[in-house]
């Protein structure tokens, strides 16, 4: 009796759930699944983005890409950016957070100063650094000269061998603030008794950091690393705004090449093939990582 009377209520509830879910599912399908499917389809076609006419070319876009020096170079640059994003901004952010985690005077001001660059739009960051990196009279070169290090000053954005690293310098300044804020919040929430206990047991600062603080910060670390990896995959704006991927493709990443091929050369098919490669690459690199991290967090929290 109770079961039969529960059934209409349960199905009504289910209907309500379904109704609530319908909108997000619809939005997801229209704005996510459909464009992805469309992009995959276009990657097998030749299309200039304007014409009503599309030609089916099979795998030609992919075979052309994988034999292309420029594409392989962009791919390697993306991997460099991934390594950079996983190591540099999180390390600097953590170091700054630890520095400020000592109840020092003017903490709020420093917090604002460290976080502020992250609030600047990437295009503005790029044009600022474009001036800092000016090779003859830019601030960096001038400061190096005044310190007697003029011989080490480089053609920062003009030398194909170092241009990507120079852009990474700007990106580090720009993004470290985000890691810093997350780690700062994490440090705030650490149980002070654990650190206190370690100190009483005679642990030095180094040991306390590696054995106690850092493991306890793991949830913050996961957030920072996860988002950094995503940032590395979609790296576009700062590179495009600083160098357009130049000189002569030296600082190209997959996303800048995709934009250039799509709208600079009106080759939508090949651009879509780059997009699909980027999607697969992100899946291969990031999804297992996110899954693992998510499980780890659950375990740590449990």
């Amino acid at each position: 009796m109770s079961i039969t009377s529960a059934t209409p209520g349960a199905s009504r509830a289910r209907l309500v759930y379904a109704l609530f879910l319908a909108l997000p599912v619809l939005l997801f399908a229209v704005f996510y699944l459909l464009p992805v499917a469309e992009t995959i389809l276009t990657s097998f076609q030749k299309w200039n983005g304007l014409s009503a006419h599309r030609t089916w070319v099979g795998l030609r876009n992919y075979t052309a890409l994988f034999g292309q020096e420029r594409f392989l170079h962009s791919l390697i640059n993306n991997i460099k950016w991934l390594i950079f994003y996983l190591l540099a901004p999180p390390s600097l952010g953590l170091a700054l957070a630890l520095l400020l985690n000592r109840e020092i005077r003017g903490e709020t001001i420093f917090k604002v100063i460290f976080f502020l660059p992250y609030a600047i739009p990437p295009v503005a960051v790029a044009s600022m650094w474009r001036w800092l990196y000016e090779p003859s009279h830019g601030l960096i070169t001038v400061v190096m000269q005044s310190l007697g290090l003029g011989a080490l000053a480089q053609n920062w954005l003009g030398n194909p061998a170092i241009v990507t690293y120079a852009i990474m310098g700007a990106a580090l300044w720009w993004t470290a603030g985000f890691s810093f804020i997350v780690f700062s919040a994490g440090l705030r929430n650490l149980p002070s008794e654990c650190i206190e206990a370690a100190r009483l047991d005679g642990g030095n600062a180094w040991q306390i950091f590696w054995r106690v603080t850092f493991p306890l910060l793991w949830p913050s670390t996961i957030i920072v690393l996860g988002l950094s990896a995503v940032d590395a995959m979609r790296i576009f704006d700062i590179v495009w705004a600083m160098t357009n991927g130049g000189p002569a493709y030296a600082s190209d990443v997959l996303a800048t090449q995709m934009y250039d091929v799509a709208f600079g050369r009106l080759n939508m098919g090949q651009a879509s093939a780059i997009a699909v490669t980027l999607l697969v690459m992100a899946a291969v690199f990031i999804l297992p990582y996110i899954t693992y991290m998510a499980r780890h967090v659950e375990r740590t929290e449990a």
Partner: protein
Amino acid sequence: MLKMTRRTALLLAASIITLSSAASAQESSSEVWTYWGSGAEKQAIESVVALDNQKHPDTEVTHRVIPGNTLEMRRQLQTALLGGTPPTAYQSAMGYELKTFVDADQLASIDSVWKQVKGDEIFPRGLQRVVKIDGKPYAIPLNMGVISNVFYRKDVFDKLGLQPPKTIAEFDAVCDKLAAAGIAPLGNASGPFWSMYNFYAPLLSVLGPDGYFKMAQGEVSFTSPEIRKAFELYRDTFVKHYSKNWSGKTWAQGGDDLVNKDVGMYMMGDWVSAYMKERGLQPGKDYDFFPAPGIGKATLIQVDVIATPKESKTSDNFLLTAASTEAQASFNKYKGSIAANLKTDPSIYDYVGQKEVKQLQASEAENVVLPNLFFLLPTNLGSEMGNQLERFASDPSDATLDTVLKTLEALRLQDKEDDAFVNW
């Protein structure tokens, strides 16, 4: 990844909302899209829009800025054309850009406007060739920028007793004297355009104007002895004299080098004159220009045109206005460029503009006002050539030259196979 695509989806949703509002806005007024988004450029186009609204109050248009450049314009046009909400008219490049839109059946021929404004008489002949596809005109040229002149510091030249060089040998000698005085002879800047624009002078001195158009039509092999000779000449006249670290500078930073007298000369489009004026230099006194050595009587131009999508309704009136000497005078006075309509009163120009008009008239008399090759080649080849020239200018070794020429030739053959070249 999920995060990225969700954000992309949000962006998409936002742009669709913007687009639909643009579409509804269009029902009441028609738009002219340009990427002249700030300063004098914006004033320039808005003065044309105002003039048009005064002349044709029944077909009122409004100006809409598409922030960015050609690439962003293409991106937005694509969406608008797919969505069936094209602007009344838009800023376009000449040549291949028009051809792409014509082939996609997106552009309207402007035959009647062209006849009415006597297009065949008012625009330079070299320019007429590249706004026509298969003999039919598709756009009204608004302004020209000369890209084949070398700007130099007049005060530096005077001090060292140098004369503007007329031949390649004289140019080389001037460079040597500047270097001996401790001034880097020639500036340059990074990006796919500037090295390529410098290269046109050596190219023309080898191929001549007819060969130049043949090259634009895909008839000259990149592995031919002539092209190799042009590249070598470029290396020996220009690349050899470029300032150190040029490849790390924007074109404006290259202009600063000339302002600061770090370099003696800078071959750049004439917009650098406006930049130097802004920095407080006086044309004719602090700086001047001469035609690039080896270029002969030719003058190379960069052009902006106004094109009209097929679906737009009120475009003819705006085009008629845009072609008029009145609009061209007003536009180019603000922008500091040269009116494409040669009947425009030259009193609107400053020292540089007036000198360029004389130069253009002399070239026009010989029919050698030549449009920028970048916009005559199929889009992929033009872009690749710019990048390969930048690479060669950074590393002018024989090995690089071999790779550069091989890469470009492969692309030319592919474009040939795709029947992509245009007989301008």
